[in-house]
């Protein structure tokens, strides 16, 4: 079966093969009959700081900006962590990382949360899920009992290493990682001495040529290389994801909940031809900021390197923006948006400052946490701007509320404005946690956590051997949105309630356990 055949069949499978399971379930009597669809589109590592809507100095998202004229735009929306696993798990379960406990990169959620997710919360909808990202795919596997169509992540890659793809299907991710370390020479070193040399000289070149020859048109579109996942053979293009999603949703005959997690603009940044070098010489400099004690072990970059990396990231965002625009038009053309709540968001952000580039660092600065959230309600006319603090965990209860579905007891978020019924002046705290060494069953002891309340943001680091004592930072984001001026030493009294709330949450989580 070729790629196009698969895309067609996957769409048909959604309609014909798997639909009965969804629709034959008896609806609980108290639930309103489902009428509207929900589509959540996640672009990985998409920082809201890179949006012109947030005052960024580059027009990275012309299509999204245009479409947002008929959307709700959340200007202060926060991810629950700064990398995929905890960020995605919070979005999908509506709970904070200390509750779902997926702290580490390949973690799954704990026990009960396998049946507590966006998918279990919509039992009457046809539930469809896909992720390019292997770590988000691990989470989706966790929720498989409540998903009607779960497309394996590699189905939307147009290429993979044919020698590896079927060797160890039950241990695919670890085997692929081991293969990279033992055989591949991408990092100029490998565990083996002879096999790696033979592979590099005899197997790899013809394999790469074979893939290149079979997909010449695609390679021509990506002069910096085709977007890749875990290794140089797992290649994909966003166009296939958009085509698959459009086709699958077009063929749905009943209400659906669909979650699509696309990897761009996550690194490696590989923009399509027309976007390459668009920002190479526009003179937008990276702001010089002091390094952080916990970033010393990271690969450190010069300002010039950060400028170059950030430009590529922004060009990759242009690609994302163009494909989101195409998805939107496909859905509108098929009449799907007339009855669908479309959500555009991300699992975490990306940073290019303080000498580091990327995410998943033990710091929680704004570029890593503040992510886009756009809700496109059916028939929305005009743009609604929401400046309140909002959180990833609020998305699930909001989607349930607007679909007249009950909000489950385990959801920790609250319904987002303008749909909420919070009393005026009631504000949320936006919290985040990074604890990427903590197993699900263990106490959270080495971590970075942040809390934003109003204009104030406190970041707390503890348990790191590099730090003689816990480190606390306090910023006033209204006056200092770049987080340059740590006010903690002179404002400990102001920091105290924030610190108490933050540590209180972790302490409570440690007392109650997983």
């Amino acid at each position, binding site marked *: 079966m070729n790629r196009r055949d698969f895309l067609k069949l996957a769409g048909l499978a959604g309609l014909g093969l798997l639909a009965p399971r969804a629709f034959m379930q008896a609806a609980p009597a108290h639930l309103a009959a489902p009428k509207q669809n929900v589509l959540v589109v996640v672009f990985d590592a998409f920082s809201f700081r890179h949006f012109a809507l947030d005052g960024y100095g580059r027009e990275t998202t012309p299509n999204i900006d245009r479409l947002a004229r008929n959307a709700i735009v959340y200007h202060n929306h926060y991810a629950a962590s700064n990398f995929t696993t905890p960020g995605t798990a919070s979005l999908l379960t509506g709970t904070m990382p200390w509750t779902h406990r997926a702290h580490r990169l390949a973690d799954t959620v704990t026990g009960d949360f396998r049946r507590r997710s966006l998918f279990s919360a919509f039992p009457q909808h046809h539930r469809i899920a896909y992720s390019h990202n292997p770590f988000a795919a691990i989470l989706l596997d966790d929720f498989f009992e409540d998903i009607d169509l779960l497309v394996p992540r590699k189905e939307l890659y147009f290429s993979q290493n044919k020698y590896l793809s079927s060797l160890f299907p039950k241990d695919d991710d670890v085997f692929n990682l081991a293969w990279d370390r033992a055989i591949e020479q991408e990092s*100029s070193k490998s565990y083996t*001495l002879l*096999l790696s040399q033979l592979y590099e000289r005899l197997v790899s070149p013809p394999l790469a040529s074979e893939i290149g020859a079979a997909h010449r048109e695609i390679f021509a579109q990506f002069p910096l290389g085709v977007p890749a996942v875990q290794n140089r053979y797992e290649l994909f293009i966003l166009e296939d994801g958009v085509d698959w999603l459009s086709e699958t949703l077009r063929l749905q005959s009943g209400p659906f909940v669909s979650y699509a997690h696309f990897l761009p603009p996550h690194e490696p940044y590989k923009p399509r031809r027309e976007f390459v070098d668009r920002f190479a010489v526009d003179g937008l400099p990276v702001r010089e900021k002091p390094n952080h004690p916990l970033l010393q072990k990271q690969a450190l970059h010069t300002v010039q390197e950060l400028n170059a990396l950030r430009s590529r990231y922004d060009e990759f965002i242009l690609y994302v923006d163009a494909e989101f625009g195409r998805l939107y038009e496909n859905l509108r053309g098929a009449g799907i948006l007339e009855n669908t709540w479309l959500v555009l968001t991300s699992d975490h952000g990306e940073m290019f400052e303080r000498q580091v580039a990327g995410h998943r660092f033990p710091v929680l600065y704004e570029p890593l946490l503040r992510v886009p959230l756009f809700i496109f309600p059916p028939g929305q006319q005009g743009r609604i701007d929401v400046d309140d603090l909002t959180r990833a965990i609020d998305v699930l209860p909001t989607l349930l509320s607007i679909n007249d579905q009950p909000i489950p007891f385990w959801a920790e978020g609250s319904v987002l404005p303008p749909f909420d019924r919070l009393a005026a002046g009631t504000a949320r705290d936006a919290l985040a946690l990074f604890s990427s060494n903590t197993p699900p069953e263990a106490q959270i002891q080495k971590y970075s956590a942040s809390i934003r309340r109003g204009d104030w943001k406190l970041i707390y680091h503890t348990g790191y051997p590099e730090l003689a004592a816990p480190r606390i930072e306090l910023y006033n984001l209204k006056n200092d949105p770049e987080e340059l001026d740590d006010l903690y030493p002179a404002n400990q009294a102001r920091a105290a309630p924030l610190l108490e709330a933050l540590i209180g949450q972790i302490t409570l989580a440690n007392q109650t356990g997983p």
Partner: protein
Amino acid sequence: MTRSDETLRQVHGADGLWRLFLISAFPTHLWTIFLFLIDVAWITERTKPGDAVGVGAYGLVAAFFDSLGIFLGGALLGLLVSPKWGAHARLTLAGSLVWVVTGWALALQVYGYFGAPFPSRLIGWLGGLSQPVLFLYGVEWILVGVSVLLPVYFLLRSERLRRWVAGFFERVSLLMIFYLLLDATGLIIVVLRNI
């Protein structure tokens, strides 16, 4: 048993083949374990300790197959050694040649690992030559040739050196048996992960 297997057995003897395998397997196992120990914190930080163990297990299994390939090359190299030499001396010489070759492979990887850039002055000087690539190939062949011929020369000349090298390989072989036990553990882990 094929004709080539028989030839190898006749030249090296069963015990010699086993010892040559142990000698050949040692450098790649040492390198695998060294790199894995460097990697383990990186892997554990990004995934889970169980996954890091899995990566190590696959790595050891790969090292075992790598060793088989190197051993086969070493055994074939041993065929070049004169039959006048006793089995012990042949083993010492073949083992030494294997170590020289794996030493070069290791040197390349160590160079890659530390990421030392090629000195810019040297690049500039090479750029001034009329045939820089040919020159580099020539230097490479000379270096490899010298690194192979020198040990052969000294081993042929010195009985004392042969005895020392043989004793060293004896100790390495003992240690290698421990590494083979690790390989077996790795294989079991790989099987368990895939059941």
